């Protein structure tokens, strides 16, 4: 059942993506820090937007990826998608954590507070906690089949909560920068924004692929006990080199 190791066909793709993402990231951040003009009202603090906004876009993608993996796993019971779910959960939690940190760093000089009960910030934090809960659940369930089903179910329930949290907190309290779209921003600002968006997209995809591969190897090791373990493990271990 677990022979379906995720993305074995293109073993080098994630490394290429990571390298490309890192290069683009350096380029985009350089542009954002030194070439792009200073924002009129917020000054240099605004430059954190060149990482913050792309991180937010990619966080949304990672959450959607985790949700879709969970749904596909429940329909197909293909363990490839369980590994992808694990990767999606962890990478989106990392991005959510980064988002909260970046948001706080930006909020302190701009609003004078570290934390603000803004709908987007609060939804990210709530979903971060929910996904960390699902990751904890995965760690506590030994049986692979149960772990996969339960974490898919919990991921779906948590992801469905996201829009509800967003709108309820929005009603509750609001004070956030209006969302900017490339159309409302001058081109000097949006080039580093776009470059970094792709940089983080590549980095994220690379990490998800590597993490999914690791997850399926662990799963293969876990489910193959006895003499078959070595025969299953060897070709995969060889691939590492």
């Amino acid at each position, binding site marked *: 059942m677990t022979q379906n190791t995720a993305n074995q066909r293109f073993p080098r793709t994630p490394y290429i993506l990571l390298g490309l993402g890192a290069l683009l990231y350096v380029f985009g951040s350089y542009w954002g820090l030194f070439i792009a003009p200073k924002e009129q009202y917020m000054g240099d603090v605004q430059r954190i937007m060149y990482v913050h906004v792309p991180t937010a876009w990619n966080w949304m993608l990672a959450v959607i990826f985790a949700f879709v993996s969970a749904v596909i796993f429940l329909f197909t019971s293909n363990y490839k998608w369980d590994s992808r779910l694990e990767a999606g959960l962890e990478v989106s939690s990392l991005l959510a954590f980064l988002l909260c940190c970046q948001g706080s760093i930006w909020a302190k000089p701009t609003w004078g507070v570290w934390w603000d009960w803004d709908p987007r910030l609060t939804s990210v934090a709530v979903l971060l906690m929910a996904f960390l809960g699902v990751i904890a659940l995965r760690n506590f369930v030994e049986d692979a*089949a149960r772990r996969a089903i339960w974490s898919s179910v919990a991921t779906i329930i948590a992801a469905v*909560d996201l829009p509800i949290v967003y709108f309820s907190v929005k009603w509750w309290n609001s004070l956030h920068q209006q969302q900017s779209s490339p159309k409302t921003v001058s081109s000097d600002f949006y080039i580093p924004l776009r470059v970094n968006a792709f940089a983080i997209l590549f980095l994220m995809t690379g990490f998800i692929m590597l993490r999914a591969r690791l997850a399926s190897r662990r799963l293969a090791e876990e489910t193959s006990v006895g003499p078959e373990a070595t025969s299953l493990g060897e070709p995969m271990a060889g691939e590492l080199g």
Partner: protein
Amino acid sequence: MIAALRKELLLQWRSRSQFFSVFIFGATALLLFSFGVGPNAEILRQFSAGFLWLGLLLSSTLTLAESFHAEMENRAMEGLILLPADPRALYYGKAVANWIQLTLLGSALVPVMVILYDAGTTRLLSLLGVIILGAAGLSAPGTLYAAMTSQVRAKQTLLPLLLFPLIVPALLASVKATSLVILGDPMQSLNSWMSLLLAFDAIYWSLCGLLYPRVLED
């Protein structure tokens, strides 16, 4: 489903001393919250709705975790799965039983809140409505998560870890609606919070019922 509900209610009736201890737990929590604020009657009254719901939320983890206790003992769960009954009926039976229990618990905590925080109201019917809808929001995902966590190690940690972030919208709406009932509602916004609660309940009662059969599978 009716049979499953009857079984759950009978079990709860037989363990009513447990309900009483959970109530004492909730009342103690309400007492402790006031020490976190200090003896300022005005502030306590303003926060009373939040304290009531936090107290109910903390107590709910105890009742929800306990609701699968009977199934886990003697591996009765396997027997239930083997029954030619729809697993959804089992879920809704247990969820409705938890809903009733949490509604009773919430209503029982109201007098404690009124006495401790001087947060009386004459709109008892609206308050009961908020408690019923809020308890529904807690019990639907709570029952599903309890079904999972009751079978693993560290269940006491995992249930709140999974449940608390999830019910943020329900908690928020319940607290807001309750405080509008207690402190007065100049903007007439009680209904919008009630409809948010209702929407949350509708989404999770259907979604959790849909997903529950997968959780039981092995």
